[in-house]
């Protein structure tokens, strides 16, 4: 009995907390992907690179002496501008063609290649690090939790909640959902649909940027850091149901827990295949993922 308690306290609990803090960041990534897909029908293959850009933006800001907390605020703003520009200058150009799904996917894939190389040219391939802004840990019920990870969890949850409220409880959110549901109807009501699309893309990209900043002190920062991370985010989005916010949150937390608890027993090499196995199983049972699409019931 005492052994079990000790196991829970010293083995399981830290793993759960670790998983949850990464889970929240994964949810932020997946949220960006799923919002972009749910509204614009675009699979954003460059999402992982936007995540890396967010992390590098924080690296630069901190290097020129701006505190981490300001970087956390400025980075998503900067990334939103980047996202808005990408949507207006690139995605809009192929958005109205018949093969929209394929062309936008290919276009963002091309963008991913370019961004990755740009990051390599600008920063080199070697990993960089950001100092953890809050050191130490707090003790709750005899368990020690690293402060920064607790902060990531709290901050991430707050952002997820804010996005949720924005989309489902505000007037602008209602317009966004309406534009996703019926573009022409919404346009005929005088809504600048193209701007709504660009802003939504910007929101998705900003979320990837925030995830990048939040995880920068935990992981190191390097040009291809988005590659593996985006694979998890894609799995989450597929399992949760493309375009579903609820699905992204639930699947994101669930999958990262599976990943982090399973790593107690199996080599981390197998954690990706495990996630993928979960994804395949879910798709066999429900080919459209767990939850429906944003704006589509």
């Amino acid at each position, binding site marked *: 009995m005492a052994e079990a308690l000790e196991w829970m306290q010293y083995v399981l609990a830290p793993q759960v907390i670790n998983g949850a803090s990464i889970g929240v960041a994964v949810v932020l990534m997946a949220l960006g992907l799923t919002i972009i897909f749910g509204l614009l029908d675009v699979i954003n293959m460059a999402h992982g690179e936007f995540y890396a850009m967010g992390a590098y933006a924080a690296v630069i800001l901190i290097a020129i002496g701006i505190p981490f907390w300001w970087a956390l605020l400025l980075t998503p703003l900067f990334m939103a501008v980047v996202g808005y520009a990408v949507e207006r200058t690139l995605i809009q*150009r192929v958005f109205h063609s018949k093969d929209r799904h394929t062309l936008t996917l290919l276009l963002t*894939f*091309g963008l991913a*290649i*370019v961004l990755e190389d740009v990051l390599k040219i600008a920063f080199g391939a070697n990993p960089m690090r950001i100092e953890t802004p809050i050191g130490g840990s707090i003790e709750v019920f005899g368990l020690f939790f690293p402060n920064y990870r607790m902060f990531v969890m709290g901050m991430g949850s707050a952002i997820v909640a804010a996005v949720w409220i924005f989309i489902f409880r505000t007037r602008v959110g209602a317009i966004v959902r309406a534009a996703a549901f019926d573009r022409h109807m919404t346009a005929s009501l005088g809504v600048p649909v193209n701007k709504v699309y660009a802003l939504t893309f910007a929101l998705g990209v900003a979320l990837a940027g925030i995830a990048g900043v939040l995880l920068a002190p935990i992981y190191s920062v390097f040009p291809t850091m988005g*590659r593996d991370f985006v*694979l998890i985010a894609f799995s989450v989005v597929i399992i949760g149901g*493309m375009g579903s916010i609820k699905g992204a949150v639930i699947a994101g937390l669930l999958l990262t827990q599976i990943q982090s608890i399973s790593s107690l027993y199996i080599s981390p090499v197998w954690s990706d*295949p495990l996630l993928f196995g979960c994804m395949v199983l879910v798709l*066999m049972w429900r080919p459209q993922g767990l939850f429906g699409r944003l704006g589509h019931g």
Partner: protein
Amino acid sequence: MGEFSRPASSKQINSLRLLAVLFFAISCVFAFIATVVEDVFFLRLATEAMIFGGLALSVDLLLGITGLLPLGQALFFGFGAYAAALILKNWTVSIWLVLLACMLSSALVGLVAGLIAIRSKGVYFALISFGLAQVVSKIVFNTVELGASDGIIGVPNAQILPGLSSGQPTVFFLFALMFIALVYSLLNYLMKTPYGRQLIAIKANEHRVAFLGFNTWRFKLSAFVLAASIAGTSGALYPMLRGFVSPELMFFQVSGNAIINVIVGGTGTLIGPLYGSALLTGLRSVVGSFTPHHQLVIGVLFMIVVILFPRGIIGYLAPMLDRRCQKGQGTVQQEARGG
């Protein structure tokens, strides 16, 4: 109504055949010149272009003909490469046996992957094929028995005929060229049969195909298996050319490059992907000799093609040639249709 792109089955067929003949003729002339001037570098590079051309053909079968976007075709390419490397390292067998084994085994792997991926449609298919390749490449990357991140090095040459081996640049280039010509002819032939036409129909309107009484799942799965087999056999040639295999062969970059080759060359034209593969393999090598960041150049080029010329080089050249030919014959009606 100008948005309909004509598939390989309709009027373009004549100019496409012309462009195909041209491609293989240029390749033969190139081989001759390169042999006369005793070049090795460009022969090897061209052989590589052929090998990745095979992968591009398999992508075009899925993307351009059947309407499935495969983001993980490198899985089968890499599988074939590893299988061939292992066979050649352990046994002394002729190239024909190696290719046969790789063809069959990659078809089998394709069947398993297809059973998982074909269930889902559209972007789900794309992302699942992506994930499958990603996962398998990670496993290979971490498997010591397969050389982990180093891969397998020192793969010996394979014998083609007594006195001819994959180690001779001209011989192996011509062998790869012959292989690609064979695959191209097979696919080209299939597009003239009801089977190939059903694949085109699935791309055009999958929903209706079911109401014509055809099981679309079977057609898609068989196309997927065929594509896997083509990719795997192409991959089998890789270690014979370079003498090694590494997990990078399964990475997304290889799948992505294959898609770029197809899109730039011309989706659904079959010959386009071969042109794309030749041009871009050359471009990567040329740009790569100036800067390590050749992906940047390729990426920008690719984005320009996607935005401005989504039909690709051959997709634009072929109708243009058609119009030229028809002007010569003076058939006004068809010309109007070609526009």
